[in-house]
């Protein structure tokens, strides 16, 4: 085996940059902190491309099957000879693909931010946070130990909290950061319990051993975990479902998706990084990582499937009504991640049955590029218009030609028009769904039409519709550092579909044969085209048709606009029910009983001391008298009473 130690540098370089910029950035790197962060990430990205090349084309494959390689392992916290928390680096197709995606998208965001965040007061802090986030995400994807992944998972949560709340002088940003942190933290509780269940029954925290023990049907661990049951489901189902809840929290699956739209309060490049390509797919990655175990538990997989499909549909409907462009993109992210989730859910392990698994990761791969492109394009638009609202935009195609073209490419990619990237991955997902569950297939095809519709609604309202009325065009389309990432990502959104993911990233490591069946792809593509045509008809020129359609849908439109009142339901449950039934009584007990006891002790002591403080009169003869009285008392005691 080759020496893979250099891979440790991929996450460690961003960490070094974080420490450097976080500790000294504001003092010594005020102007070129962006260069430091971008430079370290460029090195990481080059290393990870090299790793990918090495793994996929030179020595990852043994007998046509990609192997899991433990590149580095250090026992960090041993509990017993068999159970320990390790810090390790695992190399297998998904982790290698993920480090490439993460470093690459992060690099694009770093470069874009050079222009976008220019002149910010806390420029160095921003880059420090970006580096921290990249480090955590890379640590997450290379984790070889389930507890290691949990630690990096939390680090990702913290750094996303910091980035969402970057504009902390805005109350809405603070609220959004808190909301994201609390909701994902709540989901992580499920993740932790899931880890504990799986680790308890399998007797290990190491991914490889855990998967091997829980998937061999004769092993005592497998028999134990399937025979133990709780509330009618086996412990295996419980453990996996709880792990999935953790993943659903990070990946913004219904009903834990409420933080994602609000998280758009962060700087737009941050949204491109966190809420498009990396953190939100952590849940998908987690399920994929444990997929051999998921694949033997039908119930857990069905939960994954239905939650994914429902989220995809719900988010697409909501996205049609939103007017904040970043929120539209946020909901489309949620919808696409729903696709990835249910693709995993309908998949099986190994061979041709693993199509869904491959399709899900393929979609993750292509989605990372075109969605970060969409977000960066939106960032460029917001940079020019100084607003997130659709009504402030329109006719921008002449002002920003590069943004316009790349945005159009990304829209075509997400809509699934051949030959753009999204077409290929979406086709695989749809055919996986078609082979296993017709209901899911129907939902997916319908959602894909909706996706095309709302993406082009967004596209037309930004770039066509009315004439441009932006007066403040002093910085035009933005600096070169803002255009370059758009162009690179645009090329990738066009070409990423031709990357042969099917032969590289599969459930069991063996290559998978895929082909595009024209008859099969006709329906989704036609629906997508129909969506685009409808959007063209409604939004290309400013008219009153969208308004009248919205009115004719009446309450349905209003419900979708208000995001189906899910936020209100959460507020009702937390504020009214939890607050009144648990919070208030607990506060009363704390105030009156716990504090009351302590106050009683204090006031009693105070009263006694006031009563006897007069004894300390400052008159020395009085003291002598007390002393003498004491001696007399003792003498009497000893002489007469000591018997």
């Amino acid at each position, binding site marked *: 085996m080759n020496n893979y130690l250099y891979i440790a540098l991929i996450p460690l370089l961003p960490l070094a940059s974080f420490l450097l910029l976080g500790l000294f950035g504001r003092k010594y790197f005020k102007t070129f902190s962006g260069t430091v962060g971008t430079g370290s990430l460029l090195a990481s990205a080059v290393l990870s491309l090299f790793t990918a090349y090495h793994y996929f084309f030179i020595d990852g494959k043994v007998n046509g099957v990609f192997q899991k390689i433990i590149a580095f392992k250090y026992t960090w916290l041993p509990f017993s000879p068999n159970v320990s928390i390790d810090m390790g680096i695992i190399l297998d197709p998904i982790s290698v693909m993920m480090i490439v995606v993460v470093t690459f998208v992060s690099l694009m965001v770093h470069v874009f931010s050079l222009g976008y965040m220019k002149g910010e007061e806390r420029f160095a802090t921003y880059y420090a946070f970006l580096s921290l986030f990249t480090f955590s995400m890379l640590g997450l994807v290379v984790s070889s130990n389930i507890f290691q992944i949990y630690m990096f998972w939390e680090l990702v949560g913290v750094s996303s909290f910091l980035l969402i709340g970057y504009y902390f002088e805005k109350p809405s940003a603070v609220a959004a950061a808190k909301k994201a942190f609390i909701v994902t933290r709540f989901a992580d509780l499920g993740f932790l319990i899931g880890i504990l269940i799986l680790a308890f029954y399998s007797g290990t925290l190491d991914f490889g051993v855990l998967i091997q023990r829980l998937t061999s049907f004769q092993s005592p661990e497998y028999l134990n975990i399937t025979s133990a049951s709780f509330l009618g489901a086996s412990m295996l189902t419980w453990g996996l479902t709880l792990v999935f809840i953790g993943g659903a929290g990070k990946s913004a699956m219904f009903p834990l998706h409420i933080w994602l739209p609000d998280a758009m309060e962060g700087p737009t490049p941050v949204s491109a990084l966190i809420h498009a390509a990396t953190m939100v797919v952590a849940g998908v990655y987690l399920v994929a990582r444990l997929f051999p175990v998921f694949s033997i538990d039908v119930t857990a997989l069905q939960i994954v499937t239905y939650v994914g499909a429902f989220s995809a549909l719900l988010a697409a409907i909501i996205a049609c009504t939103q007017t904040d462009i970043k929120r539209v993109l946020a909901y489309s992210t949620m919808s696409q991640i729903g696709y990835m989730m249910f693709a995993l859910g309908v998949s099986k392990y190994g061979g041709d049955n693993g199509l869904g698994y491959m399709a899900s990761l393929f979609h993750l791969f292509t989605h990372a590029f075109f969605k970060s492109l969409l977000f960066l394009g939106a960032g460029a638009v917001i940079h020019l218009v100084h607003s997130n609202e659709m009504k402030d935009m329109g006719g921008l195609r002449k002002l920003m030609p590069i943004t316009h073209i790349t945005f159009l490419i990304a829209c075509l990619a997400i809509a699934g028009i051949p030959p753009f990237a999204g077409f290929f991955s979406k086709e695989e997902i749809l055919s996986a769904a078609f082979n296993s569950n017709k209901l899911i297939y129907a939902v997916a095809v319908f959602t894909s039409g909706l996706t095309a519709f709302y993406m082009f609604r967004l596209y037309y309202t930004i770039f066509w519709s009315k004439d441009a009325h932006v007066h403040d065009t002093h910085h035009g389309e933005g600096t070169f550092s803002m255009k370059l990432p758009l162009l690179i990502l645009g090329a990738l959104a066009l070409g990423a579909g031709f990357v042969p993911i099917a032969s590289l990233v599969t459930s069991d490591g063996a290559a998978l044969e895929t082909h595009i069946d024209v008859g099969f792809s006709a329906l989704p593509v036609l629906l997508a085209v129909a969506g685009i045509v409808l959007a063209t008809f409604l939004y290309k020129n400013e008219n009153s048709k969208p308004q009248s359609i919205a009115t004719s849908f009446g309450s349905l439109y209003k419900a979708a606009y208000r995001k189906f009142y899910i936020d209100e339901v959460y507020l009702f449950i937390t504020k009214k029910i939890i607050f009144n039934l648990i919070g208030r009584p607990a506060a009363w007990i704390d105030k009156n009983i716990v504090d009351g006891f302590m106050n009683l002790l204090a006031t009693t002591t105070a009263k006694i001391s006031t009563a006897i403080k007069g004894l*300390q009169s*400052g008159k*020395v003869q009085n003291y002598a008298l007390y002393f003498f009285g004491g001696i007399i008392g003792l003498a009497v005691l000893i002489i007469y009473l000591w018997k």
Partner: protein
Amino acid sequence: MNEITVTHILFVSTALFFIGMYGLFTRRNMITMLMAVELILNSVNINFVAFNKYVYPGKLDGIFFTIFVITIAAAEAAVAIAIIINLYRSHHSIDVEDASELKY
């Protein structure tokens, strides 16, 4: 003629002790109080000498102790007078009632 017994001597020393005590409690002048303390010490000395003579006539321990106490009393008087002088400097009085700042 009656012999002087230990009881007589103890009466004297007890009287001396309580006179000293009374003086210590009632006098406000610190020099007088110091004198009262000396009375108390001397009553103790009388006890030592008396018990040495009547109980252990062959030994000198009580006498040695008495000499020791007298020495200590001399040193103590020196210290006490130094304190009194300092008190006078700061309060312009050697009345203990005037020096009652150290209270609640």
